[in-house]
């Protein structure tokens, strides 16, 4: 399948009093049409910033964002307006992302008005009702306010709003993190159904690896602004090659009590993303770090077909020569 979006050497730096914060640092990947790319990583790894830079909500510091053949990084704010019909975002917190003073219908029709999608009020109303039905909201909800809904239904409103203008690409920034598991499963199923029905392409950002595994085709793992591993989801979860990915996977508490898993506990915490300097950013927490890891930044390379990793010692990890000590 052709790619809908290709990102190369994308950088986003923020100037802060203490220096330059490398939020997204030299990130490259592409997403095929109709597929889902999962982005995982812990707080502060730059995954939300990445999503926002792709949409042009923050201008990129450097790098290219090629969307359907157009390089968005060269577009002005005005040029981006028609592109916004093609790319939309679903935010994390359905309690903060809905205007409490607008009704459900007003919320969903706002993008339709802004982009002059419908010619008449009647047409707009029809479209809003169609969207509400699509996300599983009853007609009764039309004139209600967000506070009358629980988290799961609010997230359905947010999804309807994002889909109103008929986008091809949707950035989903932790869309189910604020929801209870039973409701989370409802929303995940809805998102999968909508993707199939409308041919959507998702960038699915989450800190929850089991959710990402469930919904994604490919997965990238980010650490301090960089992509450290990318692969098809089966490969990534079966044969992770970066020590951080391995530790991350082992840290997820499993409900399968029969399975005896290796439990790896990393030392330390994320270091600062401000002026990180040379060397592997994970080296300080990595049990396999050598002098080289602290000196030179590892290359992001394709070690196996479609399986990319940025680690000096990935070959040794892959062959099993390097093994974590269990707790």
């Amino acid at each position, binding site marked *: 399948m052709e790619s809908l979006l290709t990102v190369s050497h994308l950088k986003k730096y923020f100037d802060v009093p203490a220096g330059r914060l490398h939020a997204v640092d030299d990130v490259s990947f592409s997403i095929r049409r109709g597929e889902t790319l999962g982005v995982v990583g812990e707080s502060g790894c730059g995954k939300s910033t990445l999503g926002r830079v792709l949409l042009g909500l923050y201008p990129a510091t450097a790098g290219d964002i090629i969307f359907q053949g157009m390089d968005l990084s060269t577009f002005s704010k005005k040029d981006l307006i028609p592109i916004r019909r093609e790319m939309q975002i679903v935010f994390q917190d359905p309690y903060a992302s809905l205007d409490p003073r607008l009704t459900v219908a007003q919320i969903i029709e706002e993008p339709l008005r802004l982009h002059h999608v419908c010619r008449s009020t009647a047409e707009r109303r029809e479209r809003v009702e169609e969207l509400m039905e699509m996300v599983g909201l009853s007609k009764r909800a039309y004139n209600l306010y967000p506070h009358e809904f629980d988290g799961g239904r609010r997230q359905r409103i947010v999804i309807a709003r994002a889909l109103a203008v008929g986008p091809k690409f949707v950035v989903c920034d932790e869309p189910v993190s604020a929801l209870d*598991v039973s*409701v989370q*499963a409802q929303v995940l199923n809805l998102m999968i159904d909508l993707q199939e029905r409308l041919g959507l392409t998702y960038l699915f950002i989450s800190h929850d690896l089991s959710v990402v*595994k469930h919904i994604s085709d490919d997965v990238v793992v980010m650490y301090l602004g960089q992509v450290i591993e990318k692969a098809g989801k089966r490969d990534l979860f079966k044969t992770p090659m970066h020590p951080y990915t391995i530790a*991350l996977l082992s*840290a997820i508490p*499993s409900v399968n*009590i029969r399975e005896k898993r290796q439990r790896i506990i*990393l030392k330390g915490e994320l270091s600062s993303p401000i002026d990180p300097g040379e060397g592997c950013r994970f080296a300080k927490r990595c049990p396999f770090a050598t002098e080289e890891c602290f000196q030179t930044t590892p290359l992001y390379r394709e070690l196996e077909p479609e399986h990319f990793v940025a680690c000096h010692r990935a070959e040794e990890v892959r062959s099993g020569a390097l093994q974590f000590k269990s707790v």
Partner: protein
Amino acid sequence: MEHDLLEIRGLHVHYVTDTDDVQAVNGVDLTLKRGEVLGLVGETGAGKTTVALSIMQLIPDPPGIILGGEILFKGKNLIYNSDKENQEMRGNGISMIFQDPMTALNPIMTVGQQLAEVVVKHKKLSKKAALEAAAEMLERVGVTRDRLNDYPHQFSGGMKQRAIIAMALLCSPEILIADEPTTALDVTIQAQVLEIIRHLIRENDMSMILITHDLGVVAETCDRIAIMYAGKVVEYGSVQDVYTHPKHPYTQGLFGSIPKMDTEDERLSPIPGMAPNATALPSGCAFYPRCGHCQDRCRESAPDMRGTEHQYRCWLDAE
């Protein structure tokens, strides 16, 4: 008669305002044995935190009212204790870790002062000895003692949570209640914090009630599990029994809702609908509007707990 360390019988707690009567806890029975770790699981609004606050005798009143039941700590009913006795019980007897490490610390006191305050108050030590005790405890949870004079904003989320764990353990309580202690943390930090908690529990022969919505965390930490729904315990048993043979349709639904790491993409089977409004609970079994096995008697009357070791609250003989 021999008492377990903590016994809760028939606990009812409501939050009553001018307009509403929120039925938060509607008849909870739980026991905690010495050295045991009990997981208390349920979704938002199930009443988990209200149970914990009842044990601590910290239910905000008004609007909270304990309408009935007993909470026996070593055989003594905490509900009839004086405020002074409860003050004594908190910290020394039962200690609690609150959910959000970002707001549980005082931003204008150093971490060391906050920890020392607990020791001075409960153990009547001198300030100097208290600071030393605080430093030692911080080191046990993996924070170096040179951070003693830092303010909370200088700590990361994981370090704040460690500081709070240290604070809860300073007076070596017999029971630790941890309310979602790792929910606000990243998974690798969660793994570190859970390991510290497990280690300290074993080392000090403490008992713990771990409140969480994460069934994975319970599987890795707890001996027994109680699943709450709409203010009642609907299933109760050893982690082994409940995870391998969940009996209550709600428990089964929870397991069906979680994406599994070790299976290929099965479609999730969520529980339809949403949790009931606690101001207007359905008659009969509170779960019947969402239950696939609902029969007439489920609507009419609420089932009692059945079973001995592995208990569940359902009319159906479901497997």
